[in-house]
């Protein structure tokens, strides 16, 4: 265990004002707190953390950010993604920037405190039920320390997407925030959700987020997750979705930011004929480190899952991919496909990839594939021989590599933003 002596500081700095909370929530927090105190920050000796060291997080003295950081984000492009949004600045809900709270367009949006009054039975059943804190020390940390959670409940077919935006400002002392998001999509309901994390340039904080999603029978959720933290920040995220009979869940993740990012995504196909899609594009350069751990857990028959994680790496960046497909004993007729292609743009980049299949049913179709390589020299030559400059040719090919994922983003404003951000990042990468 690394630097367990830092724990009390972190736990006391963020552990205030819980008296008003209901007993079940206080119990939950206490359990999570005990568990985190007993396991501590994960060491790289653990298989799950083998290639990712969180020593930098464990040795930093985090404090809550001072209030009043909102002004710095005036005119931020992410504020225009969706008309209906919840905006958190340094972990605090900014009611002025947020719009569309309450119940309309088939969706109830609010905080946990509001939900306790209006959606009481929902919150207790949803909160912390499917994050296994023993294997996820950071999820336990979030449960112990989150301030207020966001609750979204879709009970009809929502026409407009909802954006949950987290902004981190640059602070004197590194700041930490613990965003928590609970999503319930009721039977037959439909929802598009954008969850995003942006940081001011130079912000050195920690974002430790947990998102729990429940998709009921025949319901559908399209989830876009953007991680654009500052290049000095640390991001540890957990996203867990459970999908019931004939439910559909799709996640489109984009990891472009943070000095160190680790995201654990789990989707459990918990009803017959459910369907999951996990897509992710990570583009990292300099000394960025991105680690994605995913699990697609087929618990019931006739489930379909598709997973495409694509990586583009430059400079001394590192990427870790650990993707597991588990097919449980009775999940017959499962069809699961996973792929993890990686593009190494320059020397010095490093990829660890571990696509894993764990299969206990016999009548299944499961495949996985992983590739690592550089740009195809023949394709480059083909373009250059037709008068296209080498940088432009390179960008065309890389754009082509990423297009599959960019094109699938279901919210147009976000898709346009991503196209531009992708182009800018690509231009900044210098290849020999």
């Amino acid at each position, binding site marked *: 265990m690394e630097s367990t002596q830092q724990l009390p500081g972190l736990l006391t700095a963020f552990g205030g004002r819980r008296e008003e909370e209901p007993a079940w929530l206080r119990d939950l927090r206490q359990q999570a707190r005990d568990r985190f105190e007993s396991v501590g920050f994960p060491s790289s000796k653990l298989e799950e953390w083998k290639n990712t060291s969180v020593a930098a997080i464990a040795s930093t003295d985090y404090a809550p950010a001072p209030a009043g950081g909102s002004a710095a984000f005036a005119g931020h492009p992410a504020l225009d993604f969706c008309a209906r949004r919840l905006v958190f600045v340094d972990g605090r809900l900014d009611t002025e920037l947020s719009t569309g709270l309450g119940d309309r367009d088939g969706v109830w949006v609010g905080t946990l405190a509001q939900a306790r009054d209006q959606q009481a039975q929902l919150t207790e059943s949803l909160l912390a039920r499917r994050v296994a804190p023993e294997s996820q020390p950071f999820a336990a940390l979030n449960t112990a320390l989150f301030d207020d959670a966001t609750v979204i409940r879709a009970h009809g077919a929502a026409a407009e997407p909802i954006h949950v935006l987290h902004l981190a400002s640059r602070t004197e002392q590194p700041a930490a925030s613990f965003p928590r998001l609970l999503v319930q999509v009721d039977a037959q309901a439909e929802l598009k959700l954008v969850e995003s994390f942006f940081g001011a340039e130079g912000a050195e904080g920690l974002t430790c987020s947990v998102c729990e999603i429940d998709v009921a029978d025949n319901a559908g959720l399209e989830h876009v997750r953007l991680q654009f933290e500052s290049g000095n920040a640390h991001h540890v995220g957990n996203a867990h979705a459970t999908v019931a009979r004939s439910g559909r869940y799709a996640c489109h993740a984009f990891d472009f930011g943070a000095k160190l990012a680790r995201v654990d995504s789990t989707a459990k196909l918990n009803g017959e004929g459910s369907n999951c899609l996990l897509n992710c594009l990570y583009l990292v350069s300099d000394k960025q480190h991105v680690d994605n751990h995913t699990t697609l857990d087929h618990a019931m028959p006739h489930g379909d899952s598709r997973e495409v994680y694509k990586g583009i790496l430059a400079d001394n960046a590192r990427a870790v991919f650990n993707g597991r497909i588990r097919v449980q004993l009775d999940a017959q007729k499962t069809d699961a496909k996973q792929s993890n292609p990686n593009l190494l743009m320059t020397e010095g980049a490093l990829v660890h990839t571990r696509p894993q*299949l764990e*299969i206990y049913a016999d009548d299944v179709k499961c495949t*996985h594939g*992983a*590739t690592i390589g550089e740009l195809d020299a023949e394709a480059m030559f083909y373009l250059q021989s037709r008068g296209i400059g080498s940088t432009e040719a390179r960008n065309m090919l890389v754009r082509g590599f990423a297009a599959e994922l960019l094109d699938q983003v279901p919210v147009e404003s976000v898709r346009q933003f991503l196209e531009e951000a992708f182009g800018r990042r690509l231009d900044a990468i210098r290849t020999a």
Partner: protein
Amino acid sequence: MKTETQNLEELANRDYKYGFVTDIDADSLPPGLDEDVVRAISAKKNEPEFMLEWRLKAFRHWKTMTEPTWAFVKYPEIDYQAISYYSAPKKAGEGPKSLDEVDPELLKTYEKLGIPLKEQEILAGVVAVDAVFDSVSVATTFKDKLHDLGIVFCSFSEAVQNHPELVEKYLGTVVPHTDNFFAALNSAVFSDGSFVYVPKGVRCPMELSTYFRINAANTGQFERTLIVADEGASVSYLEGCTAPMRDENQLHAAVVELVALDNAKIKYSTVQNWYPGDKDGKGGIYNFVTKRGKCAGVNSKISWTQVETGSAITWKYPSCILQGDNSIGEFYSVALTNNKQQADTGTKMIHIGKNTRSTIVSKGISAGEGQNTYRGQVKILKGADNARNYSQCDSMLLGDRCGAHTFPYIDVQNPSATMEHEASTAKIGEDQIFYCQQRGISAEDAVSMIVNGFCKEVFRELPMEFAVEAQKLLGISLEGSVG
């Protein structure tokens, strides 16, 4: 698939064909392990000082290690103090000089296994057998013919006596005594094994082969094999094993080291058919093996081919260290688990030199309640320019209580490298069987055809002598379901 279920039941009920115990006096050490036991083993074998030192170093290191638990296998805890670490068939005075002097009981054992040693010696120069019965080699054939070419092919004990300089130079250079728990244990207590040295520029004219066999009760078998191919040499080595039926679990922790110098080639083939335990998972061999080859020189090549059908637990990762530029590593494997068998097997390909290439083809077949895991690593280091790897891992499931798992570890640090990994898991398609039946082929024959086709890529890599045995073994292992 009613027929298939029936067949699988038959298959589960089959008895181990090779289960019997040969009754001969064994000169064994009492159970237990401490420095005195290590010294006793070394003394019994009349080893030079450097060997004893090496064993003791390994033993001291082993005591500081803990048993690994990361493999996807389950077994009751092993009491290392309850195992007898040395067992040799009793010799009357000198060791046997020819086959005629070999204990007839032993010869019968081999006959039951279908390896008529006598016949083999007569069968002009096809296969040389360095037969290992428990821990001491009792007969080595064709040695003279090989001797004329300068090839050393003998038991490890003999090599220690007659070629100590070669043993000292290469022992532990690929699998150091600190490598892992089981390799360290082996280094401390290994009893015997095979030693091959092929001198510069010599192409070994025949397939070299060893038949392993575990006999005396409660004796862990700790084989040590070392094969060195000097510059420009080439050799093909076969290893096959069967073991008698027994109710206690037996530990087998072997180490195999291969060294290929400049332009050398080594091909190592294994058919493993040790006692897998009965249908309730009782008994069976624990096969915890460390196998590794080093392509030390330029343009060298090491190729592993294995057919694993036996053992209660298989824990085995034949690996290649591709150190020399342009060196090639290959791994072809068929692993079958049935009843309660568990296999966690795969390979490691470590690319260090430039233009190194590796190929991995792994076929896993699970039946009954068998758990079959492929675990492999491909590591391409910074200096390995233009390294190339292709991996393919396919699993086939026969029955709804078995499991197939794939855990590849891929680490690439060089942008000019190309790495491809593919894996698939599926059952035999009902439509495939229907297609065959429609054309007058019975369901059993169809399954047989499909399984054989599934494994063809690997069998193709086996030497002729082994390909036949491998197909036969697979047939026995899937008896009933494949007709």
